[in-house]
């Protein structure tokens, strides 16, 4: 059982994860594995997202970003931080404007880092994390020693634009 969070609030998940073999259901928004999407990017009509596993490169998706409404990046474990760099590339290099979703082992202690790197939604299955987020509790620290992604950059301190700033 997972809960989707956007802007720290639980929201209904309109997306259905479809694995490599299942038939594509009609009338719903589907997320398919990267390999399946790349086999035939035109095959799915309507809103489509892809799931990129931690070990998969984004390179194959280059040029296809425009046709996607969502890209989900997997965290197979707390220790695997590859998606933190991928989201920055999607956000900053590709200028991807759809939803970038963190899925997998999403933990409260990383939520702030995920947001800072550009994730726009989090699919959370870890119950204490669901509880903390629902309760509005965040152990993260709002003092940032470096600009990461997006709005943060503009908010940085005037005398050290390359460096530190407070959240918000």
């Amino acid at each position: 059982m997972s809960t989707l969070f956007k802007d720290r609030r639980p929201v209904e998940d309109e997306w259905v994860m479809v694995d490599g073999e299942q038939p594509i259901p009609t009338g719903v928004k589907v997320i398919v594995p990267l390999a399946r999407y790349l086999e035939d990017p035109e095959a799915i009509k309507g809103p489509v997202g892809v799931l990129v596993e931690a070990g998969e490169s984004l390179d194959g998706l280059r040029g296809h970003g425009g046709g996607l409404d969502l890209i989900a990046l997997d965290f197979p474990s707390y220790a695997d931080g590859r998606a933190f760099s991928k989201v920055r590339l999607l956000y900053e290099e590709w200028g991807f404007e759809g939803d970038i979703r963190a899925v997998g082992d999403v933990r409260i202690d990383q939520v702030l880092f995920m947001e800072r790197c550009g994730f726009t939604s989090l699919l959370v299955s870890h119950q204490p994390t669901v509880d903390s987020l629902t309760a509005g509790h965040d152990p993260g620290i709002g003092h940032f020693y470096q600009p990461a992604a997006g709005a943060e950059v503009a908010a940085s301190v005037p005398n050290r634009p390359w460096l530190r700033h407070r959240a918000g």
Partner: protein
Amino acid sequence: MYRYDEFDRDFVKARVSQFREQVERRVSGELSEDNFKPIRLQNGVYLQLHAYMLRVAVPYGTLNSAQMRMLAHIARKYDRGYGHLTTRQNIQFNWPKLADIPNILEDLASVEMHAIQTSGNCIRNVTADHLAGAAADEVADPRPYAEILRQWSTVHPEFLHLPRKFKIAVIASPNDRAAMQFHDIGLEVRKNDAGELGLRVFVGGGLGRTPMVAKEIRDFLPEKDLLSYCEAILRVYNLSGRRDNKYKARIKILVHETGLEELKEQVEAEFQRIKDGVLQLPRESVGAIEAYFAPPPFEALPATGEILAGAVSQNAAFNRWTRQNVHAHRQDGYASLTIALKGTGEAPGDVTADQMDVIADLAERYSFDELRFSHEQNAILPHVKQDDLPAIYDVLVEHALAAPNAGLITDMIACPGLDYCALATARSIPVAQSISKRFANMDRQEQIGALKLKISGCINACGHHHAGHIGILGLDKRGEETYQVTLGGSGDEQAAVGEIVGRGFAADEITDAVETIVTVYLEERQSKDETFIETYRRVGAAPFKIGLYPAQEAA
């Protein structure tokens, strides 16, 4: 030195509260040990053989007397009355209780210290030349760059879950005193022909089970690009570094397997994309950080102190100590000095709470309130008047801190080994103690001259044995501690990985083996000015092998 402002203070305080809450969640069971582990590691908390260990960050090894006194207080109150200086210029405490650690961190925060990122798969404490700001041979003080990197890497959201740990060192002199080329990123501050400051960048150095000397990836990176270039390297590494095997996860393996040219192209591509962005360092920003490291108010003094000259001529023991432990300073009439934490038979790098207080007092009174920890596990007073040296020496003698062996064979690096460490396969400290006692005669040590001996208690190489002129690696061979010897390693600007000389030695043979190596060197050297490493580079391993394994070599 760098001083916290309100932002830094608030951040460190918030971090202490955050960790206190995380410890509570661990104790309540909400956090499993698996999920707590990366959190505690990034707060400097290890689980050792017998207890937790707390490693406190000393950025680029620079600290003041109030900080040193707080370390003494922590050693007394929460530990067993001593601390241990590490090869990353940090200090670690071997016996704290987990429940006390949030309180220790609070005490540290009160003197602008913390334990953030002294462990874990993140960017670790940035190290620098321990004579920064004092050495006559540097082109600039490397610490402003180290401080900028420290700030940028502090809780960098993208780089807290790297494939493996990531170490950065900065030097600013052609003479490398910080083993820069054994770092994931090594930086050498230099000037170009136009006189502008920039950095020579090395990547992919490291010790451990696959030792590698770093490779030059940029011969001159403009100062303004420091952070964007490092961020590009880290991003490429985070995406492509191996995660299937923790022993192949350091960037050195990525450099090796990808090839320097290919990796360089990837880094350059990412760098070109981001270099004109927000990470660009304006000169005024660097200048603002440099101001924290402005030279202290030195007095105008003659080049050589009169009192010093008098004491040297009257006191042979003092004279010997000045020969080894006192270093030339950029400022006339001043010197830097090494307080060698390597007295005969002592565990290298261990320092008692009382000694910490003494060193703090000396730093406050004689060295503009500043001291350093070196990666060679010694304390340094960077800026003392030459004429104060006799008075300082007397205090050091009184507190067993005047070992006159800096740079000599008994000034060893040794890891904690099997006496403390859960990873170790053999003991290190007893070997260091035995060698220290064998070579206790100072006349003999001086006769042998400059020699770097480094001991690790397992292949992870925390004791830098690969970089030792003589390296000793403790292994477990069918339940017996066995010590493998390497020769010819070096952590200086001619960085080299030592070569294994032959089969290992038992614990009761290793000191004799070192003795044999030294004897061969003394026979082979062309003059007493030819150092051990120079002789080794000239004659190679052959005569040492004959000395160590006579029967085998004759057969």
